[in-house]
């Protein structure tokens, strides 16, 4: 079995993550001593106290104290959070233990959409006009004075859950009530962000921040228009087909956002739009791309690595950076690649998915991963936030990759009850 050869990594994995396998296997490939921290205890925690630990993810300072206590017995050399909450906890732990990481204020700003917009606007980063409103405000008064079209957003829910576009006052009132219901169900917030809808194509920017400088790892086009009323994501394809000047503006906007929020170290995932007025920063998270989408990114170690056929996963780069291990050249492979987050086919209980083999047989398709299990209730956006699966493709051009993803999706049939 693999034996650790470097300092110990503390990996913050919420139990509801898609990211466990990718990070755990990356740590194994690198021979890293790994401790997995979750918000709920593993049944093996007592038997393997160095490998598993429970931290209070809801209270970053308490989690940092717990991690400090843990580190007295098992010294930690690096910490990684894989989601928005985990990034805040990781920042608190890094600060307390003197590890590489972000200032807690930067991680908090990246997690909270209102704080983030305030900081970005204050530093001149282009963001949509925004207002914060309480859930108990008079909705009709609000509807009469907001600008249309607008977008209503919860401050901290992930995966565009609860994000709704409104084009007029009746639409605003309906959207407000719906978001309020989602937030009450989630039980986490009393405020809502209302911002101008920004027209134009949306991209996702994946990067690694090293000592405050952003290294661009990938720019993904989202070829399905995200014009609302809900914002369920579907296809990501890289490299971007936007004109080079637009890509450069987007990258610079991402750099400006990193600097404005004070992000210093680690992965970022940002959503931006581009239109005639230039780039717009929609959101920036101090964590890597979510779901299983990271599988679409593969990196070479420069020319020498390409000749040997060596590739690195995004998770390997993130772990190497967190532990101060040497980083290979941060160069994405030359082929185009893409992923489709399979849209929720409707509300209901999943009985069966047909056509998986046929979808996998589509040329350029590398994998079709169905993550919803039989008997699971599928919930469409905006109430839902869980994709039933992912399709991956790789090819010579972004157009070919996009076509393969759509063709594979067309062969899938979800049988609901």
């Amino acid at each position: 079995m693999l034996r650790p050869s470097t300092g110990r990594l503390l990996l913050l994995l919420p139990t509801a993550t898609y990211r466990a396998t990718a990070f755990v296997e990356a740590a194994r490939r690198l021979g890293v001593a790994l401790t997995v921290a979750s918000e709920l205890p593993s049944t093996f925690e007592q038997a393997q106290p160095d490998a598993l630990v429970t931290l209070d993810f809801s209270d970053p300072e308490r989690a940092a104290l717990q991690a400090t206590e843990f580190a007295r017995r098992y010294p930690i050399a690096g910490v990684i959070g894989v989601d928005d909450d985990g990034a805040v906890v990781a920042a608190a732990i890094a600060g307390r233990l003197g590890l590489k990481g972000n200032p807690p204020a930067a991680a908090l700003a990246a997690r909270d959409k209102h704080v983030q917009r305030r900081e970005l606007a204050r530093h001149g980063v282009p963001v949509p006009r925004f207002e914060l409103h309480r859930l108990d405000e008079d909705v009709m008064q609000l509807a009469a004075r907001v600008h249309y079209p607008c977008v209503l957003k919860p401050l901290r829910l992930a995966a565009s859950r609860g994000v709704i576009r409104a084009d007029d006052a009746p639409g605003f009132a309906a959207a407000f009530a719906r978001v309020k219901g989602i937030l009450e169900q989630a039980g986490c917030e009393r405020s809502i962000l209302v911002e101008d809808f920004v027209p134009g194509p949306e991209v996702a920017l994946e990067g690694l921040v090293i000592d405050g400088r952003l290294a661009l790892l990938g720019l993904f086009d989202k070829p399905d228009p995200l014009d609302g009323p809900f914002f369920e994501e579907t296809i990501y394809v890289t490299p971007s087909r936007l004109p080079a000047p637009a890509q450069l503006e987007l990258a610079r906007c991402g750099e400006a956002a990193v600097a404005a929020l004070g992000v210093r170290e680690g992965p970022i995932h940002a959503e931006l739009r581009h239109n005639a007025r230039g780039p717009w920063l929609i959101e920036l998270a101090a964590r890597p791309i979510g779901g299983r989408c990271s599988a679409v990114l593969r990196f070479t170690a420069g020319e020498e690595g390409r000749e040997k056929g060596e590739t690195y996963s995004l998770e390997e780069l993130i772990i190497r950076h967190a532990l101060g291990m040497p980083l290979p050249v941060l160069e994405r492979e030359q082929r185009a690649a893409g992923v489709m987050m399979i849209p929720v086919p409707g509300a209901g209980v999943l009985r069966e998915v047909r056509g998986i083999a046929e979808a996998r047989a589509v040329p350029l398709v590398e994998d079709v991963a169905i993550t919803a299990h039989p008997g699971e209730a599928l919930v469409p956006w905006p109430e839902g936030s869980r994709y039933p699966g992912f399709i991956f493709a790789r090819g010579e051009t972004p157009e070919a990759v996009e076509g393969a993803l759509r063709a594979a999706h067309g062969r899938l049939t979800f049988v609901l009850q």
Partner: protein
Amino acid sequence: MSSAEIRITAEPIDDARCKFLVSEPVHDGGVRRFASPDEANGSPLVEAIFAIPGADVTEVIVSGNLVTVVKRSAAPWQVIGKSVGGAIRAALAGARPAIAPKPAAPVAAGGTDDDTLYDRVAELFDAQVNPMVARHGGRVELIDVQDAVVMLRMAGGCQGCGMADVTLRQGIEAMLQQAVPEVKGIVDITDHTAGANPYFAASKK
């Protein structure tokens, strides 16, 4: 059944490992693991998989209707998988059994044979591993030990669980390292996509 009617579903685990779920049994004689082309002699399916050009296959594990292939090359599973599928169809259509019967267990270099290791791992699973995973409605089945590599299947709350890999690597593998250090590796042959009641279901983006 003709080879055209055989349905094969590929489930890549990562760039190195991929499971192939076949619509009919490939091998009924328990789990067989092959770690070199020499070991594949007499098993047409595995001979063919080791011979796939450009794959640099290092390991093949066959159990029931599941074939797990481990490769060293960077060639994508999209390409290699088609050759594996072709090999499976050809082997099942052939006159000889796709997989030869398991030979008598060899004695490992350290003097510990697979049967002895199996007994020790089974005892660990019964006494410690399964009582622990049972708290989350899970179960871990020891399928076989071959060349000191443990093959297991996860069931119940573990099957399809978002934290299954954490349980496997941080829990079970770590316990095996301590209790049965002669074990060289651990292979999960679970079809996690079929898990109907995972303890933790992934729900975040």
